[in-house]
């Protein structure tokens, strides 16, 4: 009888443990009606650097705060949302010769694996490997990423409309435009080959 009781208790506690672990895995939606999520780009050019911003960010990321290595998901940027401070520059940038936003409307990053995880006070720092697609060309990239986990902060952000958690993703990395077929070897005197991308986005996981 004692053995049965022990077995029952052990299996019950295992169930509770697995349930609590399951509860840590959440799906975060990065669609942001507030217009805060953004990806900025910076590249060298004569006289002054060219910079701009994209706010058309969306995507779904599954994140387990107890096991950050299990992160998966996709972040997508609407190419047409790329904004520069000069209309002519923006027109050129989105035009056929450069990004061709009409033919390639999305820029995306699909997470495949996580390595070199370092725990921080309110999250994790890691190297995220995934497929980065720009102008229809997909290349595997490993980028440094910081995950900031903000439990129970969705209510505060949505003024109480929803309760849940927030996940902030930050990353800064550099790509070569020629790797993605953007005027390879051309206009190097006007626009640098390297483009720095800075990503700062927050995803929301509302309570079920």
């Amino acid at each position, binding site marked *: 009888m004692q053995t049965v009781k022990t077995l029952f208790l052990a299996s019950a506690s295992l169930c509770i443990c697995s349930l609590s672990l399951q509860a840590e895995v959440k799906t975060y939606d990065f669609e942001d009606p507030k217009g805060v*999520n953004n990806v900025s780009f910076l590249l060298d050019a004569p006289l002054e650097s060219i910079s701009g911003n994209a706010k058309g960010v969306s995507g779904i990321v599954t994140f387990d705060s107890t096991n950050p290595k299990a992160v998966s998901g996709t972040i997508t940027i609407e190419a047409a949302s790329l904004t520069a401070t000069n209309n002519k520059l923006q027109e050129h940038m989105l035009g056929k010769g450069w990004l061709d936003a009409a033919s390639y409307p999305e820029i995306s990053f699909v997470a495949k694996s996580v390595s070199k995880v370092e725990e921080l006070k309110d999250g994790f720092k890691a190297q995220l490997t995934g497929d980065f697609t720009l102008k229809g060309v997909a290349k595997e990239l490993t980028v440094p990423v910081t995950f900031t986990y903000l439990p129970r902060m969705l209510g505060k952000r949505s003024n109480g409309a929803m309760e849940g958690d927030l996940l902030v993703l930050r990353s800064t990395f550099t790509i070569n435009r020629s790797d993605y077929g953007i005027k390879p070897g051309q206009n190097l005197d006007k626009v640098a080959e390297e483009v720095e991308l800075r990503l700062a986005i927050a995803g929301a996981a509302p309570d079920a």
Partner: protein
Amino acid sequence: MTDLQRIRSSLFCLILRILALVLILASTVFWIYTGKHVGFSKDRVEIPQVDPITQIEYVDYEERFVLGVEYLALAYGLGVTSFGLSFVLRQKAK
């Protein structure tokens, strides 16, 4: 050259010099007024913001024209050309 032609020529030279002065002064004043931007012209201005919950830094844009140095250089070039032309014409009139 008659006196009337000489007066006309002097008047034209004076107009060219005034035009040069107006071009240089107006472009400088407008450049200072729109923010003394040492770069190319902007059609919108970035306003840095920080989200209070996530601490994400982002920019909002204000649709406002900022004069860049390319227009300033063009105005200065036209001004100097106009000023120089007035001297050339004056020499010819003499």
